[in-house]
C-alpha cells in the first residue's frame, strides 16, 4: 500500500494512481466513488481543516487535504515587524504550545546574531518547554480520544492537568496561553523561589496523573480495537516525507532533535527517547504517553539543579536590535516535531525573510497514504493521531 522513497523517484505520478488493494468493489460492477468534503467545519476538534475524500463504500479511495482556512499571513506580517515584535506572533502559531514556539524563534535569532544565553535562562527554558510538552501530550491524547467517541472524560482529565500548568505559566509570564516569555539572549522575567516551589509541587503530582491516564486508557479494549493496525506509517516513507516528532518515533526512527542537535542544555539531563515498532495510531498514542513520562523526569532534574544568576545576557540589545546581514536556520524539538525558523537579515530592523518550518504542516504530507483503504470513521482518528494545530499548519 505504501510507496517507498525509491519508487516515488522512479515515477513522480505514482501517487496519483490508486494503489492496489484499496478498491473493495469490483470496478466492473459499475459502482462509483462517492465524493465527500469533510470540513472545514466538522465535529472533530482540530479546527478548520478540510479533506476532500473519495469513498468506495466505506473505504477511503482518495483523500486530498485542503489547507488555508486559517492562513493568517504570519510570514508576511513577520517581514513587516521588527524581530522582537514577531515574538508575540509566534505564540499564536501552535497556540497550545506557545512557549516552545518562543524558544525556537529565540534560538534562531540568537544564531543569527551570535548571542549567548545565561545558564539560569537555559534552565528556565527547559522547564517551561517540558511543561509545555506535558500539557500538549495530555491534550492531544484527550482530543484523540474525543474524536474516537470517548466524549468528554479523557479530555477532561487532560484539561484538569493543563489548567494546573497554565496557572504556573500565568504566574510566571502573566498570561495563560500566549506567554511571550523568551527574549533574544534569555527570558523576560526571572522565576521566584515560590514559583519554583509551586512547579515542584505540580511536577510531583504529574506521575500520578500519568499512571491514572494510562490505567484509564492503555488497555481499554475499544481503544485497542480501533487504533491497532490503523493508519500505519512505514519508516522509509516517514523519513522521505520529513515526518518529525512523536509521529516519526512511533514508526521506529530514532531522531530526537534534543539528542541530535544538543541544543540548549539537554545534554545534562538523563532521558530516553521512546520508539514504537508498528507506526500505527496506537503507537503514536503510546509514544506521547511515554514521552510525557520522560518529560517529567527532565523536569525533576532541571528543578533540582537550577542555578542562580541572571536570566538575561547583560550584553543583549533589546532596543534598536539589528543583526548583521546573513541568515540562520534554528530548530528545536517542539511537542509536535521539528519547529524551525529560517531568518534572512539584510541588516535592517526587520527580517528580510521570516520563514516558519511548521511540524504539523509537513506531518500532514502522509495523511493520504495513512488513510487509504481504511474506513471513513478512521480518518478522523488518523488525523487526530498526527496531532495538528491549524494555527501552525496554515500560519
Amino acid at each position: 500500500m505504501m510507496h517507498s522513497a525509491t519508487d516515488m523517484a522512479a515515477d513522480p505520478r505514482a501517487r496519483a494512481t490508486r494503489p492496489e488493494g484499496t478498491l473493495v468493489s469490483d470496478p466492473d460492477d459499475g459502482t462509483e466513488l462517492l465524493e465527500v468534503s469533510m470540513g472545514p467545519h466538522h465535529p472533530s476538534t482540530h479546527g478548520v481543516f478540510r479533506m476532500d475524500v473519495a469513498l468506495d463504500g466505506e473505504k477511503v479511495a482518495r483523500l486530498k487535504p485542503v489547507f488555508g482556512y486559517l492562513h493568517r499571513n504570519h510570514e508576511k506580517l513577520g517581514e513587516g515587524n521588527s524581530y522582537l515584535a514577531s515574538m508575540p506572533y509566534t505564540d499564536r502559531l501552535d497556540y497550545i504550545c506557545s512557549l516552545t514556539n518562543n524558544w525556537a524563534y529565540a534560538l534562531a535569532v540568537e544564531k543569527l546574531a551570535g548571542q549567548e544565553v545565561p545558564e539560569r535562562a537555559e534552565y528556565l527554558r527547559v522547564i517551561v518547554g517540558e511543561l509545555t510538552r506535558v500539557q500538549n501530550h495530555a491534550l492531544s491524547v484527550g482530543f484523540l480520544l474525543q474524536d474516537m467517541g470517548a466524549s468528554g472524560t479523557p479530555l477532561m482529565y487532560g484539561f484538569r492537568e493543563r489548567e494546573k500548568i497554565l496557572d504556573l505559566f500565568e504566574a510566571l509570564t502573566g498570561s495563560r496561553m500566549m506567554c511571550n516569555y523568551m527574549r533574544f539572549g534569555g527570558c523576560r522575567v526571572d522565576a521566584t523561589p515560590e514559583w519554583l516551589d509551586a512547579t515542584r509541587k505540580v511536577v510531583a503530582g504529574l506521575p500520578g496523573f500519568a499512571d491514572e491516564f494510562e490505567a484509564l486508557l492503555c488497555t481499554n479494549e475499544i481503544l485497542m480495537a480501533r487504533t491497532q493496525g490503523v493508519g500505519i506509517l512505514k519508516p522509509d516513507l516517514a523519513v522521505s516525507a520529513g515526518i518529525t516528532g512523536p509521529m516519526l518515533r512511533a514508526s521506529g526512527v530514532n531522531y530526537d532533535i534534543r539528542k541530535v542537535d544538543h541544543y540548549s542544555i539537554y545534554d545534562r539531563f538523563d532521558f530516553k527517547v521512546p520508539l514504537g515498532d508498528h507506526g500505527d495510531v496506537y503507537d503514536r498514542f503510546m509514544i506521547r504517553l511515554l514521552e510525557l513520562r520522560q518529560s517529567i523526569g527532565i523536569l525533576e532534574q532541571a528543578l533540582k539543579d537550577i542555578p542562580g544568576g541572571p536570566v538575561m545576557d547583560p550584553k543583549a540589545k533589546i532596543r534598536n536590535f539589528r543583526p548583521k546581514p546573513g541568515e540562520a536556520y534554528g530548530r528545536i524539538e517542539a511537542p509536535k516535531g521539528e519547529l524551525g525558523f529560517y531568518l534572512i537579515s539584510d541588516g535592517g530592523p526587520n527580517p528580510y525573510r521570516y520563514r516558519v518550518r511548521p511540524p504539523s504542516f509537513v506531518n500532514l504530507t502522509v495523511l493520504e497514504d495513512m488513510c487509504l483503504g481504511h474506513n471513513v470513521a478512521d480518518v478522523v482518528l488518523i488525523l487526530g493521531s498526527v496531532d495538528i494545530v491549524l494555527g501552525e499548519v496554515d500560519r
Partner: protein
Amino acid sequence: MKTLEEIKAAIEAAVPGAGVEIVQNPGPAAQHSLRLQPGSAFEVAKFLRDDAELALNFLSNVTGVDWPDKEISEKVKVTRAVTKTVDGVEQTVEETVEETRKRVEPGYLEVVYHLFSMTQKHGPVILRMRTENRSDKVELPSMTPVWRSAEFQEREIFDLYGVVFRGHPDLRRILMWEGFKDHPMRRDYVEPDDYDYEPTAHDAVLAKAKAHQAAQQAAAEKGAAQ
C-alpha cells in the same frame, strides 16, 4: 560531516558539469550554502540523498525568497571624445567625465532547501536555486520525487511566490483559494484595500484607513460630478 568544499567536490565528481557554487553567509551563524543550477539540480539532489556517506535523506524546510529588481546607481568614469575650440582651432580631445548611471539588476525568485540526515544525524546542508527572472521564466525542477516532504512546501511556494515546479505531481494553490490571482508573499504585492473603519492607536493601520477613506471620498465626488 564533510565540509562544504568536500561536498562540492563530491557532487562535481558524481554529476559532471553540475556547476555548483558556494554561497557564503557573512553572519555569525556561518551556515553557508550551495547554489545549484536548475538543469542539474535534480541529479545532484538524488546524489545527495543516495550517497552513503552524506545520506541527506531528510529534507526539512523549503523556503521561497523574493529578490525584486534592484535599481543600482553607480558613478562611472567615462572617456568621451569632445569637440572643443582651443585657441581658435577646432580640435577633438579626449576627456574623462563622471556620470551617474542607473542599472537595473534583474530580480529573481529563490528557493532554499535545508537538508539533514536522519541516519548520520548531521546537517544542515543548504541548497539554493534561482529562477531566471520574476515574471515569465519562473520554472525550477521539483524536489518532490526525491523527498516527499517538499510536496506541500513547494505547493506553498507556488501559491505565495509563483515559482512553477517542473515535475511536481500536484501543483495547485494550497493556502489561497482557487481563482485567486496574486502571489501575496512577493515584495511588490498590493494588498486589497479594505480598511474601512479604524479608530486605532496603531499608526500603520490608521494611515491605511485614512488613505482608504480619501480614496472613497474622491470616488464619491467623481461619481457625483458625473
